[in-house]
């Protein structure tokens, strides 16, 4: 029940934070030069004043900024996120349409990076000082330092163009019209490269953090006590050291999870993955205000939700935190 009151308190704050984010973003976006009518007229290659005035009127951009803000906020309060100027569809439909692809990608990357990262970090901690431990840390440093887009392009060249093992881009094979299991397998094949690329960086961070954290916990008195009373070394590593070393990793995992909606722009672009990140980037370039604000809203929402989940998991993992709400 403690959790419930905690969550209720957080929810109240969350609504205020979301509202503040919306208003702030609204003015931020409108401060950028240009507007969607100009961008669209520019793309059309020929234009006259009537054409642009017509666009502005249809988008409601001819009204004063505070009026536009009021329309937007009151729309959002009734879950109406408005209309994308450019894509000519309701913002909510566009976002919900793209959300599954992004969650699949970032979720897969999350699981890969967290599980492999913690595993590699634990191994490196147990083999600290040995060549195998150094090798793991060397690889982790390499992945940590290599730019994402470079890894992405190189993996496409290697696995798609030269070896022809994996598809180069996209969500599924165009024109294949697979159904059922074949479709799942097809999507899984397309998922491998982008998920690994996206996961690599975080995997490296988890590896380094798990190792450091485990090594520092291993110095503590209760570990010495466990060893002295004859607990098996494997059990000590798992139950005494790893579990106590997990708190900073949970913090980081919470941060990574919060980025699941908006954090994959680069990967989605290189691999033509039909997700939210690309939607957001295009909306920014085209000054598609409503769509951009919509994506910001959902990104912020996810960050807040995962912060709450992280808080709860803290309390599960470490009973000492329970008192301080």
């Amino acid at each position, binding site marked *: 029940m403690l959790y419930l009151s905690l969550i209720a308190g957080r929810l109240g704050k969350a609504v205020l934070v979301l509202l503040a984010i919306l208003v702030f973003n609204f003015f931020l976006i409108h401060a950028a*030069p240009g507007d969607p009518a100009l961008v669209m007229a*520019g793309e*059309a290659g020929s234009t006259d004043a009537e054409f642009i005035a017509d666009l502005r009127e249809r988008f409601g951009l001819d009204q004063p900024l505070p009026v536009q803000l009021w329309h937007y906020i009151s729309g959002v309060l009734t879950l109406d996120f408005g209309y994308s100027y450019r894509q000519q569809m309701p913002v909510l439909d566009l976002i919900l349409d793209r959300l599954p692809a992004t969650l699949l990608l970032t979720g897969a990357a999350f699981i890969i990076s967290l599980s492999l990262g913690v595993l590699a970090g634990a191994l490196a901690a147990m083999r600290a000082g040995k060549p195998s431990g150094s090798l793991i840390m060397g690889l982790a440093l390499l992945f940590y330092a290599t730019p994402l887009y470079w890894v992405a392009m190189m993996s496409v060249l290697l696995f798609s*163009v030269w070896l022809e093992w994996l598809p180069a*881009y*996209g969500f599924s094979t*165009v024109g294949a019209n697979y159904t059922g299991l074949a479709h799942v397998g097809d999507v899984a094949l397309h998922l491998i490269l982008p998920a690994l690329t996206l996961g690599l960086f975080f995997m490296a961070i988890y590896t380094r953090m798990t190792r450091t954290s485990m090594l520092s916990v291993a110095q503590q008195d209760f570990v010495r006590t466990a060893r002295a009373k004859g607990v098996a070394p494997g059990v000590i590593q798992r139950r005494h050291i790893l579990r106590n070393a997990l708190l900073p990793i949970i913090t980081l995992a919470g941060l990574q999870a919060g980025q699941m909606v908006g954090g994959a722009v680069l990967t989605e672009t290189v*691999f033509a993955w*039909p997700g939210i990140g690309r939607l957001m980037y*295009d909306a920014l370039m085209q000054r598609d205000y409503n769509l951009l604000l919509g994506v910001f809203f959902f990104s912020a929402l996810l960050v807040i939700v995962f912060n709450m989940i992280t808080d709860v998991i803290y309390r599960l993992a470490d009973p000492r935190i329970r008192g301080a709400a």
Partner: protein
Amino acid sequence: MKNPIASLGLGGLLLTLLSLSPGASGSSASSDGDGAQPHSGGEVNIAIQPEPPSLMLPLVQNNPVQLIGGNIFESLLRYSTDLEPMPQLAKSWEIGDDGLTYTFHLYDNVVWHDGEPFSAEDVVFSVGFMTEVEPQARETMSHVERIETPDANTVVFHLKQPYPAFIMAFEVGSMPMVPKHIYEGTDYHNNPANAHPIGTGPFEFERWDRGSVIVLSKNEDYYQEGLPYLDTLYWHVIPDAASRAAAYENGTLDVLPAGSVENFDLERLADLPGSCITNQGSEMFNPFAMLWLNNREGPMSDVRFRKAVMYALDRQFANDVLWNGLGRIPAGPFSSKLPEHDDSIEAYPHDPEQARALLDEMGYNGEQIRLLPLPYGETWARWSEAVRQNLEDAGINVTTEATDVAGWNQAISQWDYDIAFTYLYQYSDPSIGISRTYNSDNIARGSPWNNVEGYRNERVDELFAAAAVEADPEARQQLYSEVQQILHEEVPLAWLLEMPQPVIHGCDVHNLITTGIGISDGFKNAWIESGD
């Protein structure tokens, strides 16, 4: 094509392509003309970027919509790569001796994709529709006095005065036919049919997975027997240029429309086995790169400064290095592809000495000049670096102010620049694509495509106005020659390059480009060898 995993024979496929088209590798062989017989069936995969906002070509005419829309929609005519009118929905046409009446005879067996018959009434409705929503149509159709439909398959346009460019007005991107039975009396922009566009074209809209692919399938009831050959067109949305190149390299894509890959990748991709490149198919558009020079302000208001810019530019270098030598250096304001182009005009040579002399003469004091690049990718970024260096070599003090597309549009249309990159379509007639840049009545804040340099010359205004409605070809040429000479002498802006529009495609795709708008005309005549 298939998933590389599913078909391990991809390498074999490329070999097959190579053996089927001997000597085609890396050559500039055009896509037809090797004598092979067309056959029906097959699919073609094409890159599309950016993702179009809609496929409703009559309402949205940006580049990706035009590329795809020409398969779904049609106009009365098509135009050859020599800019000659060809039949499309009109099987024949006559122009009255006085240049005032244009009579079109339509095919009588045309149906819309929903099965309703197409008729002359649709033509009249479409002219009204386009005049309402599109500026260029507003301009060309302003010459029309009235339209008559003597029978269901005949349309007669009566003009107010002769307007020779009128016969060029029926290209699908400018005057697509819109179904009257669907749009009449509705709010055009909110008509539900926009999401599933209905045209008369050789391909029908089938599916659009946002962010991934747009699928068009063969129109089985097409009015021209045996056409189209292909069953399916897949338009792949791939946002990254390097990824598009990789997708072409591994055989997933068959066609890379102009601008799909960075110029520095062109040669490599064209040299792949079984890969062809063609520079045809942009004759109707005539893209023309220029530097806006803000004539209102500072040194740019002095003609000597503007001439110095022309002398300072090393345009040959830009063409050779940045555009693979495929473009052409313009002598003056008219593209050499236009019949009205005056051959007697000589291009300003690259002569930094001359530029410096002119700057000394005018007493240029080293005032800082802002250069605004075009935010369209690597080629343009590098071009602006080259131009900056050219100008600095001539002693002009330049600072680059880069921005994104929206910021660029804003700066140009609010005249907030000194020198700015742009490119414009000159189209097929000076009265459509060129006069808009120099006419003083076309100076109006708020648009990036009118006379944004602020040039004013009454004589130029008169000449353009007279030439547009001059029926006699010789008199018309005289007017256009004079205007070119004046502009060449006064340099309202700097003419950079007649831009190439190279298309890369598998040599197994034939008849890809058959008209002056290239891929935008659709895949009506295209066919693919059954290599797989």
